[in-house]
């Protein structure tokens, strides 16, 4: 097991290195000069040269790649071309929005999706089942940015209950900050909730056919306890898997949702950095997302072992 994890870690490091090289080369051959973007249409050659030196763009590419790698290894992500502050600081600031947003969305998706899935499974073939399935269809079909706009129209413009967008910052108070994240999290959660509901339903239906469930029923356990303790636990495996797989979808969704709600999160930072040619930020963020995706897959596999005793033996 230890050896297996070590081997996995080495492979992971190599994957990350390869990813770093690819990302660097792709951004290197992209036309466009970050200094020119900063200084605009009237820039003098002297000012451009000065800014090149300030940004370290006057060094050869190989050297810049090595400096970047060295920085990544030591946690120094460099200075943003646009903002002229450490990229690590920018990412930390944005994480404070995106992470709670993503967690809230996942939480909402589970709170909505799992009970609905179970309800559909226990009422298999009846009206409630059809209702849940219809909801899931709609949740998957509705684009979440459109749903987000709809929420804004109803709750912000129409009723004035919630802010239409933006993020006052955690210093404005926990409740205020949470309120600003509620609608975006809901918009982000909708398709996930639909997927989870469908998955829970089919997984519960599958496990209800299993031998151990029949045993549990034979032992005289009530239907509810059987559901919770046996069927649901096993049904959760595919749900956890899909949550891991949905990570990149969640990030992509966050980019769109953060733009709809003007939230200062990582998604919006990527979007802005690409538009403004802030290549250092783009490089660092793409690396971060790649690393996160790989680590989450790793974590999902470990979680399997916790949920399913059969997987622990291997």
């Amino acid at each position: 097991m230890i050896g297996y994890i070590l081997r996995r870690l080495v492979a992971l490091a190599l994957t990350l290195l390869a990813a770093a090289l690819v990302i660097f080369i792709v951004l290197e051959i992209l036309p466009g000069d970050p200094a020119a973007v900063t200084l605009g249409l009237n820039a003098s050659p002297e000012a451009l040269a000065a800014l090149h030196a300030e940004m370290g763009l006057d060094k050869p590419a190989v050297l810049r790649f090595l400096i970047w790698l060295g920085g990544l290894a030591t946690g120094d992500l460099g200075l943003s071309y646009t903002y002229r502050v450490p990229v690590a600081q920018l990412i930390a600031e944005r994480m404070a929005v995106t992470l709670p947003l993503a967690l809230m969305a996942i939480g909402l998706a589970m709170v909505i999706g799992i009970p609905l899935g179970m309800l559909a499974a226990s009422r298999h073939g009846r009206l409630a089942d059809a209702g849940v399935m219809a909801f899931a269809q709609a949740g998957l079909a509705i684009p979440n940015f459109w749903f987000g706009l709809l929420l804004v129209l109803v709750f912000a413009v129409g009723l004035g209950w919630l802010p239409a967008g933006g993020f006052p910052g955690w210093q404005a108070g926990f409740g205020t900050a949470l309120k600003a994240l509620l609608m975006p999290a809901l918009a982000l959660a909708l398709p996930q909730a639909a997927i989870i509901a469908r998955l829970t339903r089919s997984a519960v239906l599958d496990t209800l056919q299993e031998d151990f469930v029949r045993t549990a029923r034979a032992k005289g356990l009530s239907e509810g306890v059987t559901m919770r303790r046996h069927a649901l636990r096993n049904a959760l495996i595919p749900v956890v898997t899909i949550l891991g797989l949905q990570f990149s979808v969640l990030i992509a969704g966050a980019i769109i949702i953060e733009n709809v709600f003007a939230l200062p999160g990582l998604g919006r930072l990527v979007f802005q950095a690409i538009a403004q040619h802030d290549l250092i930020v783009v490089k660092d963020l793409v690396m971060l997302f790649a690393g996160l995706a790989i680590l989450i897959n790793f974590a999902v596999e470990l979680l399997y072992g916790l949920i399913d005793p059969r997987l622990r033996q291997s």
Partner: protein
Amino acid sequence: MTTRRELLAGAGLAALAAQLPVVALAQAKDSVTIAQTLEPPTLDPTSGAAQAIREVTLQNIFEGLVKMDRAGKLQPCLAESWEIAADNVTYRFKLRQGATFHDGTPFTAEQVKFSFERAVAPDSTNAQRQLFAPIVEIATPDPATVVIKLKQPTANFLYGLSWGDAVIVAPASAANNKTNPVGTGPFKFVRWNRGDRLELARFDGYWGEKPALAKAIFRFMSDPQAQVAALRAGDVDAHTNLSAPEAVPQLKADPKLKVTIGRTEGETILATNNAKPPFDKLKVRQAIAHALDRKTIALGVYGFDVSLIGSHFSPLHPAYVDLTGTYPYDPAKAKALLAEAGFPNGFSCTLKLPPPSYARRSGEIVAALLAQIGINASIEPLEFPQWLERVFRNKDYDLSIIAHTEPLDIDIYARDDYYFQYRNPEFKALMAKIAVTLPEAERNALYKQAQEMLARDAVNGFLFILPKITVANAALDGMWTDWPLPVTPLAELRWR
């Protein structure tokens, strides 16, 4: 049954969330929240070209010797008066007494000298170095006087001093102005949550009139729908220049809001590569000019009337002449001219478009109009950095659409190797003459000639002036309608 109980718990949560205690915040009468489309990359207007930097900092945090008012006229600011000597190259500024920087540093002649010398230092990244290029000497005979000597008479020297690139900064704080700006303006920097908002507070030590507002927040939202929603929900009190022209009728109908359509210094042009065949032929460029139905283009982009232009000049300037009639819309004449130029069946070319929606939208219509006279322009969308690299720097283009937002920038047509590749010695001589002609009436007459020359030569397709769509709470007074300079002076805002 448990499943039902769990479901109820879920439903209960959702219900709770919907019924969060709603605190209706009464609009405190001494604060304002202003939205603008783009976030400034840094807060130092002397080391970057981004217009967004000027919009938030100029006349709020930082001040120059002179300032531009909403009518485009120069007003005294950190210089309370000035005299130009008979030699036309010596400027004597009498400085404001009792002005201080936000960190308590007193404002004196030393900082003026420091700021202008810093702008032309070898490591300076000031985007408008040429403003300071004519300076040969800065003398400070006493703390309240600055005497600046120029190489030659420079007509627009004072005008340039009202720009963000020429604000006065202090030696102790200048290096940190990018992230912690310290100026002499009526508002001081409080906090910047990057990607969302910038907070400013009234500066109690301000030398001038005390502003009505104690606190101001700039919020940055680039998404057009988000801008409209924030205005309608009352999250923001105003937007300086809305990106959603299609929402104007709906916002105009809202009694809580007032909408004004103003003008800017942004000439939107169909940039043309004058050095590349067939665009080096005057008749081809004239044909294109006759094919451009400006009114239709502007209506297609905005849905309402905006100022149309026939040359590279903004109606906000007193020297403006309307030259839209130089080559009126006339497809038949355009075709005839193309035939005379040797293209009876038209030709094919590319139209490279940068990201702004005005460029993408007008690009579609321009391509359709050109198709009417047999010119098949294939659209190539580009990201801005690629546009800068390929079109602007390498001149690898046929046609493009872009707005030149710098005020009074007609002199770009006199630059060697500028991307239009318009090489006209006569025009260059005219610009050189304007640069040294100080009397205003004389200079404006020369500007008129310059505008006519560019219009006649059909150097570019001249389309329209970027509008400034200001949307504000009906009770908020003082927003600028026009943008002779892209600024949002908070000291001029008050609640009714």
